[in-house]
């Protein structure tokens, strides 16, 4: 029988990142997937990145992950969102060719030392609450020191087209019943819901009358290491729903799975179905639909913005009311999916389950949504598993929420749990100005490891870091008085303060010629932008750190053994919230919405005087 260090179940974005980093750390790794062809499949929209999502993806990239690199290799269209704002919230988004992505990913995994097993896992084997392996339908038992489960939405999946329902995960997958039983038996689960739009044949769309959205070629890619486009870039197109569309949908809400109350689970607020949009914002002139090509040679288009669970006939009817889609043909209709996720509070903050040692969960099964969120969890769970097995060393601080979006995600999931599928937003991070995609290498210095990169990449990153340090060191040696700056037309306060070059940088236009003129050094635009904002945000880092410290100062006051109902003075609402979120420490309690300072006082008091006589 094979004996692995780490066994990863599921070959989606979480599974691949987990297996990849595990293999790079030199661990004997297996990746089990039910269907070889599912490996690296983009199950939903054909794009990677966006605001918040790119932020996680770039961290995965710098940790040695593959999502950005394979993404760039398969990209056919780029846009950078928020380009008019500071780089802390730039979100590069790439349209991905589905086939290319799967092919590139399969090629990559095959070329690695990961053992790829095509089989169905039917059970997890544990002994004394410690995982020792898995049982597969065909292969039988496989031993492993750690198991990472990344099976997405497979748990009790149910799909809905109008009133038609079907048991399944995604279309074409049968639910894995046995494994589901194991999970349901051991962990608290919650029912979630998501939806997907219909897929339309590209040849049935009249592009001539639609507004094209060309790819932006500004040298910004998903991966730090990508230097140029691999593929030809093609256009996306925009169209809009109209009053006629709205009327069709409104008249047929009773034929929607969601609105006829067949589905009761919590929907996603930031990913509303078209039914939702019409019901809540029906007074608008129209809602945008982004027609995203599924690939260079694909005959399908993904119409982003109209996920729905209406009856198939109605779907076709409303689609054909839309400009450019008058004669459209549909390959696969939109549907709603209901599935179970594990309550992420079942996890420790290293993503190991609290119940079963060395058993890790990552990805959508933890109640998240999105490829990037899954990838981040996959790599995080595997790094922690590797730490457990091989005793690899790294500073845990890199995964604190003040240092990385992965940290924010881990903290939010394991502390507060979820009520809807969790997606990353930059506003979730207190230290947003610092958690940028252009400085992830800096934030992860403590964990960046030559073995997780290929030689070229490591040379590049080391060279860049060295070069940056050299420039910063030189800048800091240069001294400027307010007078000398005035002479150069730089407006600063006449405070008599001598500033060094780094401090002066924020007053300049960040272009290489000006930089050269001012400091007599050559610099790339990319690096200049980065250090310009470092200079500009420096004072705010302090501010962010202060509020973060403020937020975390009561971290050591553990609340795990407190029965809140024993505190008679807490109001019913507050008690409900505390029981719902079960905060681990006072700091987390304070972050729960509506918890008042006086409620915190009462908890402190209860803790301090417990056992002593007090009314």
């Amino acid at each position, binding site marked *: 029988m094979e004996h692995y260090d780490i066994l990863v179940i599921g070959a989606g974005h979480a599974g691949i990142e987990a297996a990849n980093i595990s293999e790079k750390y030199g661990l004997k790794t297996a990746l089990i997937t039910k269907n070889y062809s599912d490996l690296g499949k983009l199950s939903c*929209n054909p794009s990677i990145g966006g*605001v*918040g999502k790119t932020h996680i993806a770039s961290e995965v990239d710098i940790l040695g992950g593959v999502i950005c690199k394979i993404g760039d290799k398969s990209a056919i269209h780029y846009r950078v*969102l*928020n380009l*008019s*704002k*500071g780089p*802390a*919230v730039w*979100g590069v988004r790439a349209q991905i060719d589905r086939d290319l992505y799967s092919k590139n990913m399969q090629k990559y995994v095959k070329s690695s030392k990961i053992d790829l097993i095509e089989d169905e896992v039917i059970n997890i084997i544990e002994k004394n609450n410690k995982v020792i392996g898995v049982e597969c339908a065909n292969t039988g038992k496989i031993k492993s020191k750690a198991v990472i489960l990344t099976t997405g939405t497979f748990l009790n999946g149910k799909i809905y087209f109008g009133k038609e329902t079907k048991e399944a995960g995604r279309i074409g997958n049968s639910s894995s019943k046995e494994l589901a039983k194991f999970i349901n038996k051991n962990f608290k689960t919650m029912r979630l819901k998501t939806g997907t739009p219909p897929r339309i044949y590209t040849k049935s769309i009249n592009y001539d009358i639609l507004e094209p959205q060309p790819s932006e070629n500004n040298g910004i890619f998903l991966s730090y290491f990508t230097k140029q486009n691999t593929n030809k870039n093609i256009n996306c197109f925009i169209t809009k729903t109209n009053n006629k569309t709205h009327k069709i949908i409104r008249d047929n809400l009773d034929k929607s799975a969601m609105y006829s109350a067949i589905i009761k689970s919590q929907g*996603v*607020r*930031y*990913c*509303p179905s078209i039914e939702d*949009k019409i019901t*809540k*914002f029906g007074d*608008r002139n129209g*809602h945008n639909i*982004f027609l995203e090509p599924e690939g260079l040679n694909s005959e399908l288009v993904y119409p*982003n*913005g109209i*996920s729905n669970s209406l009856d198939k006939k109605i779907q076709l009817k409303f689609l054909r009311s839309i400009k450019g889609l008058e004669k459209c043909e549909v390959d696969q209709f939109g549907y709603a999916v209901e599935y179970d996720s594990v309550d992420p509070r079942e996890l420790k903050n290293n993503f190991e389950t609290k119940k079963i040692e060395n058993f890790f969960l990552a990805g959508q099964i933890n109640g998240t949504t999105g490829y990037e969120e899954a990838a981040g969890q996959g790599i995080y769970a595997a790094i922690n598993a590797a730490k457990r097995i091989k005793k690899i060393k790294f500073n845990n601080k890199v995964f604190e929420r003040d240092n990385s979006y992965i940290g924010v995600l881990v903290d939010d999931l394991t502390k507060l749990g979820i009520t809807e599928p969790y997606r990353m*937003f*930059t*506003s*979730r991070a*207190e230290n*947003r*100005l610092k958690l940028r995609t252009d400085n992830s290498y800096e934030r992860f210095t403590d964990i960046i490891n030559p073995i997780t990169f290929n030689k070229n990449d490591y040379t590049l990153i080391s060279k860049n870091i060295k070069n940056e340090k050299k420039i910063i060191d030189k800048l800091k040696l240069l001294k400027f008085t307010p007078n000398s700056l005035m002479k150069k037309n730089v407006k600063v306060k006449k405070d008599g303060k001598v500033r060094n070059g780094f401090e002066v940088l924020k007053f300049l236009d960040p272009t290489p010629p000006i930089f050269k003129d001012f400091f007599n050094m050559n610099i790339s635009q990319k690096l200049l932008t980065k250090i310009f904002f470092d200079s*500009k*945000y420096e004072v*705010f880092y302090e*501010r*962010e750190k202060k*509020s973060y410290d403020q937020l975390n100062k009561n971290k050591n006051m553990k609340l795990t053994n407190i029965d809140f109902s024993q505190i*008679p*003075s*807490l*109001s019913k609402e507050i008690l409900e919230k505390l029981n719902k979120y079960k905060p681990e420490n006072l700091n987390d309690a304070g*972050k*729960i*919405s*509506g*918890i*008042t*300072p*006086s409620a915190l*006082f*009462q908890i*402190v*008091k209860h803790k*301090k*005087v417990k056992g*002593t*006589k*007090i*009314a």
Partner: protein
Amino acid sequence: MFSPGTIYSNITPLVKSPVIGYRISGPDVLDILKKLTKRNFSREHSVIKVVKLYNYVGEILDKCSVVYFKSPKSFTGEDVCEIFLHGSPLIASQLEQTLKNFKIPGLRLAKNGEFSFRSVLNSKNSLKQVKAINAIISNESFSSLEYNKKLLFGGDVLSGLAPLREDIINLFSEITASIDFVDDEDFNFKQIKEKILAFYLKCNNILLNNKSKVNQKNICKVMLIGPVNVGKSTLFNKLIDKDRAIVTDIKGTTRDILSNKFIFDGKKFEIFDTAGQRSKQGKIEKYGYKKAQSISKDMDHFFVLADKNTKKSDIKQLFDDFPVGNNHTFILTKSDQYQYKSKNIKISQNHDRDLIMKKIKVSQIHKKYVSYKNQKIDFNLEEIDFLERILEYKHDIVKETDILIIAQLMRNILDDFSFEFGYINNEDVYDRVFSNFCIGK
């Protein structure tokens, strides 16, 4: 921060008066009452009992009213008793000595504000409500009295800051949405900036409108001036009614200027007695007279006193030396000794206080200078301070062009509100984002 145990303190000033009150709060109240009164109060919630108090050797300390409030139905939420001793500071000190001699572990004198603190701890009052109580006691003004009562009895939602909190969450939500969901709706930085400016304009207006109202004057300052021996001190003593009037903080400043506050018909006055004016003044009197002149500019009104012996030139001198203008009442004194033909107000030391008050029309005078009608206000002093703190961010926010920095500053403001009203977390913000904007594909 919090130390448990039973606490006690006097709740009236420790001065000779009809009653001196004590409050005791904490787990040992029943035990203490048993020791003090030799009675069991556990079934006597909220009933006034007249009982004998005994000191620690069993001698009678006093016979007085005692009321017990059972936890949690008390001000602090703990067991509480209030004892109303005969108003002798001596008895009060004997009570405190007795309590000390009981040697109950943890029993101690309460710190300033500790009863209120416990009432917040035990959810009997919100932080805002306790502050409101404090404001009511310190009687900022008639309008804020009404407002603070409203807060105290109606709760935090009635605070004038509550709508601003709504504004700031909505504003922050829009900023958040414009960053995180940039391609879902058309967001416009210029519009957001305009909304921020409008928010600040609103804050500013509220501040300007309410600041004067909150700080609204509620006391009328009157100075007595007149020649030596005209009867200023007699009137002064009548007005302050040393024996009966509600007199606060007796400020004997110099031997030349006495001032005293008194309340008549629910109206607050501060009255200043001055050194007399005479043509040939001694050194000390000269000093006193000068001093009276120097504080006279803060006065609302003057009582100009004269009698039969007062010369016209004396009066003219007074009018020259003090900013009397039209804000004065001319009063002739000693009407029991002299006959006056003039139509001016005439008083005598034989008149009782109420008659004098009526004659010299103190109520009308108060009305002239103090608006004690209930102007509607929406803030108390604390909240005005808070508003001013928020306005401190204005400069930074308005000049800033980087929306990320604006967002960071707005987050700071949101955190300030969190402290006043309970934590506002990301979920609260997202709730707004998703209900105000059509987000998502």
